[in-house]
C-alpha cells in the first residue's frame, strides 16, 4: 500500500483537465504502453505565447495521473517559456510529495511538457535512435540519465531507478548506472588530473573489465605499452595481430571505450 498524500489521492480521484484538445497548438508524449505508463499532453497557446488550456491523457498508476493532472493546473495561464522552467521536483512538491519509488511519475510529466513545448517551437524532438541505450527494458538513454542525475542530484542506483525507472526491471544495467553516477558526480567536482601511474592503473582496469573479454572471444588480446598524457600506446596480441580489421577494432572499440571512461581526447596509437 502506497502512502499517498491527500493531494495525490484527490487528483487521481478527480483528475483535472483530463481529455484531449482538438486543434491543439502543441502535443507532447512521454512513456509507452509496454513500459507501463504513458502520458499525452495537449496545449492551447494564444498569440502572446500564453498557455490558455492544457489537457492530458494518462495510462499509468495513481501518481502518474496525479502528476499529469496537477501539472496541467500549474501551466495553464503561464507563458510557454515560463512553463518550460517547471521541474519534476516542483510537480512532486505541489502534490505534497510522492513515494520515492514513484518519483519517475513526476519525471514523466515533465518529459511530456518538454516534448510539447519542443513541438510548439517546431524543435527537433530528441529521439533515442542514435543514443546509447542504458536500460533496455524501459528504453532509457545515457544522456537522459545523466540529465536526471544532475537535476535531481541523485546519488545511488536506487534513486536513479525511482526517478527514471532505469534498472527497475531485469536489473542488468545497474552496473552501468553506477558508472554513469560515478562519472557524472565526479565530473561535477572537476575530477583532479590523474598522475601517470594512476592513469596506467585506470586504463589497465578498463582493459581488463571491458576490452580484453571481448577481444578474447575472438582469440586475441591487447597489451598496454605506454601512456603519454592522452596518447595511449597499445599492442594487439594473439589473433588480433594478424586481423585485417584490427584498425577498426582499435578506433571503434578500444578508443571509444577509453574515451567513454576517461576523457574525450584519448588517442590510441598501435605500436
Amino acid at each position, binding site marked *: 500500500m502506497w502512502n499517498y498524500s491527500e493531494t495525490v489521492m484527490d487528483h487521481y480521484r478527480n483528475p483535472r483537465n483530463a481529455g484531449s484538445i482538438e486543434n491543439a497548438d502543441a502535443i507532447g508524449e512521454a512513456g509507452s*504502453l509496454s513500459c*507501463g*505508463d504513458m502520458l499525452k499532453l495537449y496545449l492551447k497557446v494564444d498569440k502572446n505565447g500564453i498557455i490558455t488550456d492544457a489537457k492530458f491523457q494518462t*495510462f499509468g*498508476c495513481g501518481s502518474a495521473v496525479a502528476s499529469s493532472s496537477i501539472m496541467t493546473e500549474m501551466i495553464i495561464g503561464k507563458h510557454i517559456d515560463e512553463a518550460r522552467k517547471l521541474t519534476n521536483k516542483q510537480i512532486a512538491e505541489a502534490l505534497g510529495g510522492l513515494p520515492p519509488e514513484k518519483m519517475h511519475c513526476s519525471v514523466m510529466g515533465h518529459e511530456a511538457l518538454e516534448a510539447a513545448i519542443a513541438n510548439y517551437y517546431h524543435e527537433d524532438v530528441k529521439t533515442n535512435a542514435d543514443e546509447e541505450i542504458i536500460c533496455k527494458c524501459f528504453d532509457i538513454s545515457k544522456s537522459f540519465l545523466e540529465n536526471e542525475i544532475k537535476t535531481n542530484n541523485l546519488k545511488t542506483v536506487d534513486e536513479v531507478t525511482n526517478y527514471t525507472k532505469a534498472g*527497475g526491471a531485469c536489473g542488468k544495467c545497474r552496473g552501468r548506472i553506477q558508472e554513469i553516477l560515478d562519472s557524472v558526480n565526479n565530473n561535477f567536482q572537476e575530477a583532479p588530473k590523474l598522475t601517470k601511474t594512476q592513469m596506467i592503473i585506470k586504463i589497465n582496469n578498463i582493459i581488463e573489465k571491458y576490452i580484453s573479454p571481448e577481444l578474447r572471444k575472438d582469440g586475441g588480446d591487447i597489451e598496454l605499452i605506454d601512456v603519454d598524457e592522452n596518447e595511449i600506446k597499445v599492442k594487439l596480441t594473439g589473433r588480433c595481430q594478424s586481423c585485417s580489421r584490427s584498425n577498426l577494432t582499435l578506433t571503434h572499440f578500444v578508443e571509444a571505450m577509453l574515451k567513454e571512461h576517461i576523457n574525450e581526447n584519448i588517442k590510441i596509437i598501435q605500436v
Partner: protein
Amino acid sequence: MTDKKLIYLDNNATTKVDEKVLEVMLPYFSQYYGNPSSIYEFGGKNQRAIKEARETIKDFFGARSAKEIFFTASGSESANMAIRGILNADKSKNHLITTKVEHACVLNLYKQLEKEGYNVTYIGVNSDGELNTDELYAAVNEKTALVSCMYANNETGIIFPVEEIAQKVKSINKDTKVYVDAVQAAGKIKLDVQNTDIDMMGISGHKFHAPKGIGSLYVKSSVLLSPLVIGGHQENGKRAGTENVPFIIGLAKAAQLAQDALPYEATKVKELRDKLENGILSKIYNARLNSSAYNRVPNTTNIGFEYIEGELILLNLDDIGICASSGSACTSGSLDPSHVLKAMGVPFTALHGSIRFSLSRYTTEDEINYTIEKMPEVVNKLTALSPFQKELKELKERKGIA
C-alpha cells in the same frame, strides 16, 4: 466517516480467520500455556493436543502417517525447509528444475541456489498458463536433485498436474525428489499425497482461514531431510523451537473446516467466480480473460483490462470498498510486471492492467453482484483517461460493439 463497505476479493493474498478457528485457539494463550515438552500434566496435555492436530493435518494432506507432518511458520518456510533440507542431505547432484511461474518464495530461493553453484532449469507455460510438461521431462537427467512445481498458481489459479509430474520424473530418475508448493491449492481442492510419487508438499494456514504465521510441510517417510533450524528435539528434530501451540491448534481446526467445505468450494464458490468472470467479460469490451484453462482452482480469476493500468483500477476499486490485486508493476514497486503473466505471454496491452479476483467461502452473491455492477463504471472512467483512444475504438469495433 461512515463505515466503508468491504468486499474482500483477495483471498489468494490472505483470508479472514474463521471465528471457529479463533475460538479453539484462545484458551491456549493464557489458560493452557504449558510447554508441550514439560513432564507435568499442564504441559503434557498440550503435547496431546498437538498430536491430535498432527493427525488432522495428516488427513488434510491425505498422508499415510502423522510422522510425515511438520509444523512451520509459513509457506515460505515450508519451501525452504524442503528444498534446502533435500540439498543439504545429499550433495551429490547439482541440477534443479522448477517453473517460471512459481511463487517468489520458491523462485527467489532458486535464484539464490544458482549463486551457490546449482544449475537450474526454469520451465515455461503456454498462453493459458499451463505448464510445458514435456519440456520438464526432457530436462530431467541423472544429476537432477529436485523438481519443484506448484500445485496451483497464485495469480491465475491454474492447477498443474503434480501427481503425473512426480510419477514421470521418478520414471526418468528415481532418485530425483519432488517438492510441491500447495499453498494455493490447500482448502480449494482436495490434497491426497499418499498414493503419489510426491516427496514433499508445503501449505500455509492463512490462505484457508487460519491465522498468519503457521504452515505445514509434508515429507514422505522415506525421504531424508536435513534440518534448517537446529536446537531442541521438537518436530522430530527437524525443526527446533518450542511449538506454537495455539496456532497449531488453529491450523488443524481451519484444515478440518476447509476439508468439510471443499464441496461448497467446488460448487458455490466456483459458481460465484464464474458469474463474476462472465459478468465482467460481457459488460466490458476491453476486458480479456488471462487464462481460460478449464483446470483452475474454483475461486480465482485473472482478467486483463486493455489500455488501462492496474494500480489505478485497484485504487478506484478501493474507493468503493472492493479489495483485489494486480500483477501490475506499479503496485509492487518493482517496476516489472507479473512474471507469471509475462511467462504466459499476456499481450503488453493488458499486462499492466491485469486484476486478480479471488473469492472464498465467505463471498456472497450480493458482493459479486455489486462488483459486476461497479466494474464497468470504474473501467469506463479510466478508459476515458487513456491516451490510447484510437486503439480502444478499434478494439470496440473488432468486438462488434458499435
